[in-house]
């Protein structure tokens, strides 16, 4: 069965890029446009990986990771945050919230796939 990935980003173009890349590699992809929506979707179903942007309206990615880690189903699910190279701070924040790792923006499709392959 295809691995299922929840991709969270408030930018439709980034979502589409991630969707296009991951689906092309045979993953099943769920999409959410902010942390709150993602949290709802994560509660409703299980996924193999969460991929989230940091800066989003309503609920940011760091909070999303922290919230997800409190759910029994998401205790061991890998979670990656999308961040820009300048924000070392965000990586730290993500890590202390429970993120598995990060992908540095900008990334191209092969980089994204390589990073995803590191965790699932």
């Amino acid at each position, binding site marked *: 069965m295809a691995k299922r990935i929840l991709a969270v980003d*408030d930018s439709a*173009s980034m979502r589409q890029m991630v969707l296009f890349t991951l689906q092309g590699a045979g993953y099943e992809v769920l999409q959410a446009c902010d942390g709150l929506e993602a949290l709802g979707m994560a509660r409703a179903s299980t996924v193999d990986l969460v991929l989230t942007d940091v800066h*989003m309206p309503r609920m940011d990615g760091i909070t999303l990771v922290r919230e997800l*880690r409190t759910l029994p189903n998401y205790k061991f699910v890998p*979670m990656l945050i999308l961040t820009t190279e*300048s924000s070392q*701070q965000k990586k730290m924040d993500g890590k202390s919230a429970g993120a*598995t790792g990060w992908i540095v923006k900008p990334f191209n499709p092969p980089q994204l796939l390589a990073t995803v392959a*590191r*965790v699932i």
Partner: protein
Amino acid sequence: MTLDPEMAEIAKVFFQESREGLDVMESGLLSLDATADTENINTIFRAAHSIKGGSATFGFVEVADFTHGVETLLDQMRNGVRPVTPEAIQTLLQACDCLREMVAATEAEKPLDKDRIAALNADITHILGEPVHQAPTPGAHQGASDAGAVDNARPGIAALNQHSGWRIAFEPVADLLRVRNEPTRMFAELEGMGAFTARADVSRLPPLDELDPETCYLSWNIEIAGEIPRARLDEVFDWVDSRCRLEIVPIGDSAAAAAEPAGNAAPHPPGAASADARSAAAEAQRGPAIAAAPAQKAAGESGSIRVATEKVDNIINLVGELLITQSMLSGFADGIDPDDLDRLRQGLSQLARNTRELQESVMQIRMLPISFAFNRFPRIVHDLSRKLGKKVELKLSGEGTELDKTVLEKISDPLVHLVRNALDHGLESPDRRLAAGKQETGTIELAAFHEGGNIIIEVRDDGAGLNKPKILQKARERALIAADMDLSDEQIDNLIFMPGFSTAEQVSDVSGRGVGMDVVRRNINDLGGHVQISSKEGLGSTIRIRLPLTLAILDGQLVRVGKEVYVISLLAIVETIQVGRERVNTLAGRTEVFRLRDEYLPVIKLCDQFGVEPDSRSATDGLLVVVEADGKRAGVLVDELLAQQQVVIKSLESNFKPVSGIAGATILGDGTVALIIDVPDFIREAVKRSGAVNAHAA
């Protein structure tokens, strides 16, 4: 820059999104004038951040670089280390303009305006170069900016690559597994780099009954052979660098071993030891902003989809056809077996209801809130008031009022013109306002609301009002009206919409660039709308625009001339009358006019225009439908008034060619085609023919 086709398709979304992001930034920056509230700056920052991230991803380097400066400035404002000054806002607004052009140029694959970009970049760098405030939590910001640089540079490492392999001591913290950092996966990666051996240290492993399956008790000693760049190892351990004790020592190079202080997690940038403490501090600082976030609901958050207008138009057309079929069936039902009739009627009325609901919801797709047009105004008013040295407060209301996309697009420019006019000619300068006993700051209001089946947009100002004597004088000078004509105040005001009228004594940069009020009125009339102005001296003016909700459907009055049925827009009809012989005159032996109260109006005979045989050619026998357009009236002679109904407008132009006097056609319930009368066109013709009617009559 070439992208493969799929990416190019996604890049289109990025361009669209960037434009929306820039709109968000712009409106945010404009409201920043008043209050520098955190959530607002956050929203602006996020928009800039998305544009930067997207442009970098799609390889639009110039856009990404330029946005980086903007983002940095916004980030500092957001963190409270950079004051929000009017100058900085102005620069950021200009940066938005510049970015908008960069995005457009990138999309069109045209060269960028390098000079402008460089100049603005210099402005931003200049602001960034000014000393910052004392940071509320200095460590956090210092760390955020320094760490990135250190991370990438890591001096000296490259020189240490003379070795035959690496020895790695890896001792993870107990809860490593809880964030799903799996050592086995990391080892799999290392294995791909060279000959790899790992020895697990199981000394910390407790007895089975005390073992917590979620805890990591193991540590490893790893040896990996080969000339592997240190950076590749760091990459593997990057995600776990604060969750383990890590020692990476090159094999066969003792100098390097000494350089790497034992016990220190190697990939840590200098001074990052307190990273966790720092992130906690940043957490605390961000707390209030996060709490405030859900309270704010940005206008753009409503769930939306993008559909090509063409597709929607196609659906609307089909629904129109469905409507026609339904009314055809209804007519058909009158002639069949009475026993089945009830059930058929029932079914048909249900079909009618469903069709109408379907039509309404499909039409909804084309409807957009007028905020799309209104959103431009804060910026326009901001820029213009600075230029003119006037103080203005812009009030918007009814931004959620929805109207057809095409109407919306076409009303935008006339509205800009009206608002510019109100600012330039309507509002007085601050000292004049004070002298007149008014508040120094003038008000311009833009309001939209529904009235009947129409949308009303009002542009109100509390300025000086129109100068009626001057308008009258000008109109007479230019022979727009007869010298001895008596006009009501309202009629005088509306003279400004006449072609060839402009009262501006000197043509200013702001308004009066050849686009007159007559063009505004023509544009609005072309949309099937209507515009009028009323003003009170010293109190201000109100311009009222009435627009149809949509251009695809028309509230029509069906009229009969002989055997033909025509449709006249209900919007254009003032009243319908029968006139007696004493009220009809013939001018120059041919053109007929009739008297309606104090006015003489030309008679338009559809029978002559379209060459059909009417019941009667006399204006006194038939009915006169009084129609109005461009502020002029005429009577259309018809034989009979039929039903009033919504008709679906079918364009003749797409299949035929533009025909003067005909706005389009529609298909009636019985399947026949009825022409829709182009009232403004007819009136123009009729008024031309009857030339000096009013002058004669007066």
